[in-house]
Protein backbone atom coordinates (compact mmCIF):
# COMPACT_ATOMS: atom_id res chain seq x y z
CA UNK A 1 0.00 0.00 0.00
CA UNK A 2 1.33 3.47 -0.83
CA UNK A 3 1.37 6.25 1.83
CA UNK A 4 -1.76 7.89 0.36
CA UNK A 5 -3.73 4.66 0.75
CA UNK A 6 -2.38 4.19 4.26
CA UNK A 7 -3.70 7.62 5.32
CA UNK A 8 -7.23 6.22 4.86
CA UNK A 9 -6.46 2.56 5.59
CA UNK A 10 -4.85 3.17 8.98
CA UNK A 11 -7.80 5.15 10.47
CA UNK A 12 -10.27 2.70 8.86
CA UNK A 13 -8.55 -0.40 10.24
CA UNK A 14 -7.97 1.36 13.59
CA UNK A 15 -11.65 2.33 13.86
CA UNK A 16 -12.78 -1.24 13.11
CA UNK A 17 -10.25 -2.66 15.59
CA UNK A 18 -11.25 -0.31 18.43
CA UNK A 19 -15.00 -0.59 17.77
CA UNK A 20 -14.66 -4.39 17.78
CA UNK A 21 -12.68 -4.27 20.99
CA UNK A 22 -15.50 -2.35 22.72
CA UNK A 23 -18.32 -4.50 21.37
CA UNK A 24 -16.53 -7.82 21.89
CA UNK A 25 -15.77 -6.92 25.52
CA UNK A 26 -19.53 -6.37 26.01
CA UNK A 27 -20.42 -9.61 24.22
CA UNK A 28 -17.70 -11.53 26.07
CA UNK A 29 -19.30 -10.71 29.43
CA UNK A 30 -22.44 -12.55 28.34
CA UNK A 31 -20.47 -15.40 26.72
CA UNK A 32 -18.63 -15.80 30.02
CA UNK A 33 -21.91 -15.87 31.97
CA UNK A 34 -23.17 -18.59 29.59
CA UNK A 35 -20.00 -20.66 29.83
CA UNK A 36 -19.91 -20.33 33.64
CA UNK A 37 -23.47 -21.63 33.96
CA UNK A 38 -23.62 -24.19 31.14
CA UNK A 39 -20.03 -24.91 30.09
CA UNK A 40 -17.97 -23.72 27.13
CA UNK A 41 -19.72 -25.84 24.47
CA UNK A 42 -23.03 -23.90 24.10
CA UNK A 43 -21.15 -20.60 24.59
CA UNK A 44 -18.66 -21.43 21.81
CA UNK A 45 -21.38 -22.75 19.50
CA UNK A 46 -23.51 -19.61 19.91
CA UNK A 47 -20.48 -17.35 19.45
CA UNK A 48 -19.13 -19.10 16.35
CA UNK A 49 -22.60 -19.22 14.71
CA UNK A 50 -23.15 -15.49 15.28
CA UNK A 51 -19.64 -14.63 14.04
CA UNK A 52 -20.23 -16.74 10.91
CA UNK A 53 -23.54 -14.92 10.28
CA UNK A 54 -21.90 -11.52 10.70
CA UNK A 55 -19.02 -12.58 8.42
CA UNK A 56 -21.52 -13.71 5.80
CA UNK A 57 -23.29 -10.35 6.06
CA UNK A 58 -20.01 -8.51 5.42
CA UNK A 59 -18.99 -10.81 2.56
CA UNK A 60 -22.41 -10.45 0.87
CA UNK A 61 -23.07 -6.75 1.43
CA UNK A 62 -19.51 -5.42 1.00
CA UNK A 63 -18.94 -6.33 -2.67
CA UNK A 64 -22.57 -5.44 -3.46
CA UNK A 65 -21.86 -1.85 -2.43
CA UNK A 66 -18.92 -1.69 -4.86
CA UNK A 67 -21.47 -1.79 -7.69
CA UNK A 68 -23.05 1.51 -6.64
CA UNK A 69 -21.49 4.65 -8.18
CA UNK A 70 -18.64 5.93 -5.99
CA UNK A 71 -20.12 9.39 -5.28
CA UNK A 72 -23.54 7.98 -4.37
CA UNK A 73 -21.94 5.31 -2.19
CA UNK A 74 -19.77 7.88 -0.41
CA UNK A 75 -22.80 10.11 0.19
CA UNK A 76 -25.02 7.32 1.57
CA UNK A 77 -22.29 5.78 3.73
CA UNK A 78 -21.04 9.23 4.76
CA UNK A 79 -24.49 10.23 6.05
CA UNK A 80 -24.96 6.89 7.85
CA UNK A 81 -21.50 7.24 9.43
CA UNK A 82 -22.39 10.77 10.55
CA UNK A 83 -25.61 9.60 12.20
CA UNK A 84 -23.88 6.63 13.83
CA UNK A 85 -20.62 8.41 14.74
CA UNK A 86 -22.24 11.53 16.21
CA UNK A 87 -24.56 9.28 18.25
CA UNK A 88 -21.61 7.28 19.66
CA UNK A 89 -19.62 10.43 20.37
CA UNK A 90 -22.56 12.13 22.11
CA UNK A 91 -22.99 9.14 24.43
CA UNK A 92 -19.22 8.88 25.08
CA UNK A 93 -19.08 12.60 26.00
CA UNK A 94 -22.02 12.19 28.39
CA UNK A 95 -20.31 9.17 30.02
CA UNK A 96 -16.95 11.00 30.20
CA UNK A 97 -18.71 13.92 31.93
CA UNK A 98 -20.39 11.59 34.41
CA UNK A 99 -23.89 12.53 33.19
CA UNK A 100 -24.66 8.90 32.41
CA UNK A 101 -22.91 6.03 34.20
CA UNK A 102 -20.05 4.06 32.68
CA UNK A 103 -20.77 0.48 31.66
CA UNK A 104 -20.09 -1.92 34.51
CA UNK A 105 -19.09 -5.31 33.07
CA UNK A 106 -19.23 -6.96 36.52
CA UNK A 107 -22.84 -5.79 36.99
CA UNK A 108 -23.76 -6.91 33.46
CA UNK A 109 -22.19 -10.32 34.19
CA UNK A 110 -24.20 -10.69 37.42
CA UNK A 111 -27.45 -9.59 35.74
CA UNK A 112 -26.96 -11.91 32.76
CA UNK A 113 -26.07 -14.86 35.02
CA UNK A 114 -29.20 -14.28 37.11
CA UNK A 115 -31.40 -13.95 34.02
CA UNK A 116 -29.96 -17.11 32.49
CA UNK A 117 -30.32 -19.05 35.74
CA UNK A 118 -33.95 -17.96 35.95
CA UNK A 119 -34.61 -18.94 32.31
CA UNK A 120 -33.03 -22.35 32.71
CA UNK A 121 -34.91 -22.86 35.97
CA UNK A 122 -38.23 -22.29 34.23
CA UNK A 123 -37.51 -24.74 31.40
CA UNK A 124 -35.92 -27.95 32.51
CA UNK A 125 -35.30 -29.08 28.92
CA UNK A 126 -32.96 -27.57 26.33
CA UNK A 127 -30.78 -25.77 28.88
CA UNK A 128 -27.82 -25.77 26.49
CA UNK A 129 -30.08 -24.47 23.75
CA UNK A 130 -31.11 -21.47 25.88
CA UNK A 131 -27.49 -20.80 26.89
CA UNK A 132 -26.22 -21.10 23.30
CA UNK A 133 -28.98 -18.79 22.11
CA UNK A 134 -28.03 -16.17 24.71
CA UNK A 135 -24.40 -16.22 23.49
CA UNK A 136 -25.55 -16.13 19.85
CA UNK A 137 -27.83 -13.14 20.48
CA UNK A 138 -25.18 -11.22 22.42
CA UNK A 139 -22.53 -11.65 19.72
CA UNK A 140 -25.01 -10.92 16.92
CA UNK A 141 -26.39 -7.73 18.49
CA UNK A 142 -23.01 -6.36 19.60
CA UNK A 143 -21.45 -7.43 16.29
CA UNK A 144 -24.00 -5.63 14.11
CA UNK A 145 -22.39 -2.27 14.85
CA UNK A 146 -18.97 -3.72 14.02
CA UNK A 147 -20.31 -5.21 10.77
CA UNK A 148 -21.71 -1.81 9.80
CA UNK A 149 -18.40 -0.08 10.59
CA UNK A 150 -16.42 -2.67 8.61
CA UNK A 151 -18.69 -2.32 5.58
CA UNK A 152 -18.95 1.48 5.84
CA UNK A 153 -15.26 2.31 6.23
CA UNK A 154 -14.02 -0.58 4.09
CA UNK A 155 -16.29 -0.83 1.07
CA UNK A 156 -15.85 2.65 -0.43
CA UNK A 157 -12.08 2.32 -0.95
CA UNK A 158 -11.72 -1.42 -1.56
CA UNK A 159 -10.44 -1.89 2.00
CA UNK A 160 -13.05 -4.43 3.04
CA UNK A 161 -10.62 -7.28 3.76
CA UNK A 162 -7.97 -5.31 5.71
CA UNK A 163 -10.71 -3.62 7.77
CA UNK A 164 -12.49 -6.95 8.40
CA UNK A 165 -9.17 -8.48 9.50
CA UNK A 166 -8.69 -5.55 11.90
CA UNK A 167 -12.08 -6.33 13.46
CA UNK A 168 -11.31 -10.05 13.59
CA UNK A 169 -7.95 -9.36 15.28
CA UNK A 170 -9.79 -7.47 18.04
CA UNK A 171 -12.24 -10.38 18.48
CA UNK A 172 -9.40 -12.86 18.81
CA UNK A 173 -7.47 -10.59 21.20
CA UNK A 174 -10.46 -10.14 23.55
CA UNK A 175 -11.43 -13.82 23.43
CA UNK A 176 -7.83 -14.94 24.08
CA UNK A 177 -7.38 -12.56 27.02
CA UNK A 178 -10.87 -13.43 28.28
CA UNK A 179 -10.25 -17.18 28.19
CA UNK A 180 -6.98 -16.73 30.09
CA UNK A 181 -8.37 -14.28 32.69
CA UNK A 182 -11.77 -16.01 32.86
CA UNK A 183 -13.66 -13.08 34.38
CA UNK A 184 -15.42 -10.00 32.97
CA UNK A 185 -12.93 -7.60 31.39
CA UNK A 186 -13.96 -4.71 33.62
CA UNK A 187 -10.62 -2.90 33.36
CA UNK A 188 -10.84 -2.21 29.61
CA UNK A 189 -11.34 1.58 29.24
CA UNK A 190 -14.50 1.12 27.20
CA UNK A 191 -15.60 4.74 27.17
CA UNK A 192 -12.18 6.01 26.08
CA UNK A 193 -12.26 3.53 23.20
CA UNK A 194 -15.85 4.53 22.34
CA UNK A 195 -14.82 8.19 22.41
CA UNK A 196 -12.02 7.44 19.94
CA UNK A 197 -14.24 5.42 17.63
CA UNK A 198 -16.97 8.10 17.73
CA UNK A 199 -14.36 10.71 16.77
CA UNK A 200 -13.06 8.62 13.86
CA UNK A 201 -16.53 7.68 12.55
CA UNK A 202 -17.69 11.31 12.69
CA UNK A 203 -14.54 12.39 10.84
CA UNK A 204 -15.10 9.70 8.19
CA UNK A 205 -18.75 10.78 7.97
CA UNK A 206 -17.90 14.42 7.21
CA UNK A 207 -15.13 13.38 4.81
CA UNK A 208 -17.22 10.97 2.73
CA UNK A 209 -20.42 13.00 2.80
CA UNK A 210 -18.35 15.90 1.46
CA UNK A 211 -16.69 13.78 -1.22
CA UNK A 212 -20.12 12.44 -2.20
CA UNK A 213 -21.29 16.03 -2.68
CA UNK A 214 -18.28 16.79 -4.89
CA UNK A 215 -16.08 18.53 -2.30
CA UNK A 216 -12.37 18.22 -3.01
CA UNK A 217 -10.93 18.38 0.53
CA UNK A 218 -7.57 20.17 0.80
CA UNK A 219 -4.79 17.69 1.52
CA UNK A 220 -7.08 14.90 0.29
CA UNK A 221 -7.10 11.99 2.77
CA UNK A 222 -4.96 13.89 5.28
CA UNK A 223 -8.02 16.11 5.91
CA UNK A 224 -9.43 13.12 7.83
CA UNK A 225 -6.80 13.63 10.53
CA UNK A 226 -7.71 17.32 10.85
CA UNK A 227 -11.42 16.49 11.13
CA UNK A 228 -10.68 13.85 13.77
CA UNK A 229 -8.60 16.36 15.75
CA UNK A 230 -11.48 18.87 15.61
CA UNK A 231 -14.09 16.35 16.76
CA UNK A 232 -11.76 15.19 19.54
CA UNK A 233 -11.09 18.76 20.70
CA UNK A 234 -14.76 19.76 20.66
CA UNK A 235 -15.78 16.48 22.35
CA UNK A 236 -13.25 16.90 25.17
CA UNK A 237 -14.22 20.55 25.62
CA UNK A 238 -17.93 19.68 25.82
CA UNK A 239 -17.22 16.96 28.40
CA UNK A 240 -15.16 19.41 30.43
CA UNK A 241 -17.97 22.03 30.32
CA UNK A 242 -20.47 19.40 31.48
CA UNK A 243 -18.23 18.43 34.40
CA UNK A 244 -18.17 22.02 35.77
CA UNK A 245 -20.31 22.55 38.88
CA UNK A 246 -21.82 25.70 37.27
CA UNK A 247 -23.56 23.41 34.76
CA UNK A 248 -25.45 21.89 37.67
CA UNK A 249 -26.36 25.28 39.13
CA UNK A 250 -27.57 26.56 35.73
CA UNK A 251 -30.26 23.88 35.81
Amino acid at each position, binding site marked *: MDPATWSVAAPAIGSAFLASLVEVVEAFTIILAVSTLRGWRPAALGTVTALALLGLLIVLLGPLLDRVSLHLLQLIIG*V*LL*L*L*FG*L*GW*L*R*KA*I*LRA*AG*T*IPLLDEDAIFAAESAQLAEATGQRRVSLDWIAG*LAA*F*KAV*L*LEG*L*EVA*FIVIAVGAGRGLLWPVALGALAACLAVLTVGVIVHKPLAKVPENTLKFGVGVML*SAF*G*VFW*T*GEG*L*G*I*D*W*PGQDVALVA*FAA*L*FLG*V*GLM*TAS*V*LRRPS*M*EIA*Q
Partner: protein
Amino acid sequence: MSIIVDVAKELLGMFLADARLTTATLFLVAIVAVLIVALRIEPLLGGGVLLLGCLAILVEATLREARHRRAS
Protein backbone atom coordinates in the same frame (compact mmCIF):
# COMPACT_ATOMS: atom_id res chain seq x y z
CA MET B 1 -38.79 -14.27 16.45
CA SER B 2 -37.60 -12.21 19.41
CA ILE B 3 -34.09 -12.22 17.91
CA ILE B 4 -35.38 -10.68 14.66
CA VAL B 5 -37.21 -7.97 16.63
CA ASP B 6 -34.07 -7.32 18.72
CA VAL B 7 -31.92 -7.10 15.57
CA ALA B 8 -34.40 -4.64 14.00
CA LYS B 9 -34.39 -2.55 17.21
CA GLU B 10 -30.57 -2.59 17.31
CA LEU B 11 -30.34 -1.48 13.67
CA LEU B 12 -32.86 1.34 14.18
CA GLY B 13 -31.15 2.38 17.40
CA MET B 14 -27.81 2.65 15.58
CA PHE B 15 -29.04 5.55 13.47
CA LEU B 16 -32.10 6.90 15.28
CA ALA B 17 -31.00 6.93 18.93
CA ASP B 18 -31.66 10.67 19.17
CA ALA B 19 -34.43 11.78 16.78
CA ARG B 20 -33.44 15.46 16.91
CA LEU B 21 -29.77 14.72 16.24
CA THR B 22 -30.77 12.53 13.28
CA THR B 23 -33.18 15.14 11.87
CA ALA B 24 -30.69 17.98 12.32
CA THR B 25 -27.90 15.99 10.61
CA LEU B 26 -30.09 15.04 7.65
CA PHE B 27 -31.31 18.64 7.38
CA LEU B 28 -27.71 19.93 7.42
CA VAL B 29 -26.63 17.52 4.66
CA ALA B 30 -29.67 18.58 2.59
CA ILE B 31 -28.78 22.28 3.04
CA VAL B 32 -25.15 21.69 2.03
CA ALA B 33 -26.32 19.68 -1.02
CA VAL B 34 -28.61 22.54 -2.08
CA LEU B 35 -25.82 25.08 -1.55
CA ILE B 36 -23.34 23.12 -3.67
CA VAL B 37 -25.54 21.51 -6.33
CA ALA B 38 -28.35 24.06 -6.84
CA LEU B 39 -26.83 27.37 -5.76
CA ARG B 40 -23.35 26.40 -7.04
CA ILE B 41 -21.38 27.94 -4.19
CA GLU B 42 -17.70 27.06 -3.85
CA PRO B 43 -17.76 23.33 -2.76
CA LEU B 44 -15.09 23.89 -0.11
CA LEU B 45 -17.29 26.56 1.48
CA GLY B 46 -20.09 23.97 1.58
CA GLY B 47 -17.59 21.58 3.20
CA GLY B 48 -16.92 24.17 5.90
CA VAL B 49 -20.66 24.51 6.55
CA LEU B 50 -20.93 20.71 6.80
CA LEU B 51 -18.01 20.38 9.23
CA LEU B 52 -18.98 23.27 11.50
CA GLY B 53 -22.65 22.26 11.32
CA CYS B 54 -21.84 18.73 12.49
CA LEU B 55 -19.75 20.05 15.39
CA ALA B 56 -22.58 22.42 16.38
CA ILE B 57 -25.17 19.62 16.19
CA LEU B 58 -22.95 17.39 18.36
CA VAL B 59 -22.51 20.04 21.05
CA GLU B 60 -26.20 20.99 21.04
CA ALA B 61 -27.39 17.37 21.22
CA THR B 62 -24.98 16.58 24.07
CA LEU B 63 -25.82 19.67 26.15
CA ARG B 64 -29.56 19.15 25.57
CA GLU B 65 -29.37 15.52 26.72
CA ALA B 66 -27.31 16.51 29.78
CA ARG B 67 -29.85 19.21 30.75
CA HIS B 68 -32.71 16.78 30.21
CA ARG B 69 -31.09 14.08 32.39
CA ARG B 70 -30.19 16.51 35.17
CA ALA B 71 -33.69 17.99 35.18
CA SER B 72 -35.37 14.58 35.47
